[in-house]
């Protein structure tokens, strides 16, 4: 479904990604594992158009979306839940969620989706009228996830789902992601902790200093503790 070919990207003055090849198939859960600062976020940003790649191609269902604007990419079904959540701070929880469903659906469909997200995160319903900026870290993450789920995503890209969260919250978050995966959505998750993603992953890529150094089925790679140890420290 998603195909990335020879992607090169970076920021003013420095190249971060040096030619990434990656693919995600329908219904698959793909994990990009790598230590901090090796280009996981940059990869997701380049794929969803927040950063324009210097070379390479991003294909969605065979269509070249490399130079598309982020909103067009999102409308096409690649929905990115970024690091740091990026909520709309002066909007209520409900409004944040509704914004997730900006593209496409009618109001009735939106409320149906809202119902589904509330099922997944019942807690969000109670806080519906609260401003997003008043939420705690874990609550923010859940809201960000929920907002992503409001969209008509084909593939959800999640950047470091557990970054900066307490262990208990982390567990909750991954449990919810599991449910999402079970509903049949494709996932591309960037993470630095192999343990968290064990049950989610079908395939794993290992990213080191801007290059993918290994890839393979999750069962195989994630069991190789020595390998993981050497990459992730």
């Amino acid at each position, binding site marked *: 479904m998603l195909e990335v070919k020879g992607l090169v990207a970076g920021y003013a003055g420095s190249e971060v990604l040096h030619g990434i090849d990656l693919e995600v198939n329908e219904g698959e859960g793909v994990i990009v594992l790598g230590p901090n600062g090796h280009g996981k976020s940059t990869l997701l940003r380049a794929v969803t158009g927040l950063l324009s790649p210097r070379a390479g191609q991003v294909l969605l269902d065979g269509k070249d979306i490399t130079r598309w*604007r*982020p*909103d067009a990419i999102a409308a096409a079904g690649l929905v990115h*839940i*970024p690091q740091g959540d*990026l909520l709309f701070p*002066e909007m209520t929880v409900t409004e944040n969620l509704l*914004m997730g469903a900006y*593209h496409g659906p009618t109001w009735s469909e939106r409320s149906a989706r809202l119902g589904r997200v509330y099922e997944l995160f019942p807690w969000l319903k109670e806080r519906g009228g609260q401003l997003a*900026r008043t939420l705690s870290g874990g609550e923010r993450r859940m809201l960000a996830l929920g907002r992503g789920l409001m969209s008509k995503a084909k593939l959800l890209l999640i950047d470091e789902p557990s970054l900066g969260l307490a262990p208990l919250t982390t567990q909750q978050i991954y449990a919810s992601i599991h449910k999402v995966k079970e509903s049949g959505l494709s996932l591309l998750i960037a993470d630095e902790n192999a343990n968290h993603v064990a049950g989610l992953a079908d395939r794993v890529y290992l990213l080191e200093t801007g290059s993918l150094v290994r890839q393979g089925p999750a069962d195989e790679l994630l069991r190789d503790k020595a390998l993981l140890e050497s990459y992730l420290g």
Partner: protein
Amino acid sequence: MSTQFVQAVWGGILFGSVYGLMALGLTLVWGAVRLLNLAHGAIFVVGSYVAFFVVSKLNLPILVALPIGVLAAAAFAYLMHLIFIRPVIGKPGFDNSTLIATVGISIAVSAAAILIFNPEYKVIPPIISGNFTLSDVQITKQGLLVIGTSLALFALVYLFLTYTRRGMAIRAVSQQQEAASLMAIPVVRTYGMVIAISGALAGLAGVLLSPFFFLNPNSGFNPMIQALIVTIFGGLGSVRGALVAGFVLGIFESFVEVYYGVAWAQPGVFLLIILMLIVRPNGLFGIGEVRRL
């Protein structure tokens, strides 16, 4: 009630509505696009001249000219967005470039207006004429219309921003542009929409106010400066702030004029603003850098 008091109150409410009407468009654009639109006065002038043209050259009634003027102002603002704003969206230096570009547009518009319509003052007929007096104070019906329109527009804009999908999208874009684009909200098109709405508001203000102030190529300048003051006083990007600040400053100014003389009004307003900025550096409802709209 004394004549002076009635005059001060009436003048204050009228000034306040006028300031608010101009400030609403300015604050909307700042809030959503982060654009200090110094061409707001020029757009005001474009709307007024188009309405003037429709009334005096095409001999159509003012009620026809009003929507045409408003649409022309919106179209002009959108055109400005396409040519001068859109190319720099998201680029570094956006603030500088657009600030200067809007200054350039505003002097170009007034030069064009001189070339087309010559520098003489023009007059646009009021939508409703006539007036009555209330304890010796002249209350014009057009003035009441301006007050009503201004309040209604504030309510409309508020409802639009709070309850509609596009309105919420405008707030989303203004608060977290990156997240908005990840939610498939078309950021650039939303900017264009806000600028066009703001242009329509400026055009409407132009057509409504020209019967009072008359129309010349620079007649948008003073209302814009007043609006800028109001916007800053109320807190840039705050719709509620623009409304409250418009009335606070309008009434303050009116009372100073009536009881202390016009000469003190302007220094008084500046003094008030400096004091306010010391106490609340982000304006009355100013919400700093992140909290907008």
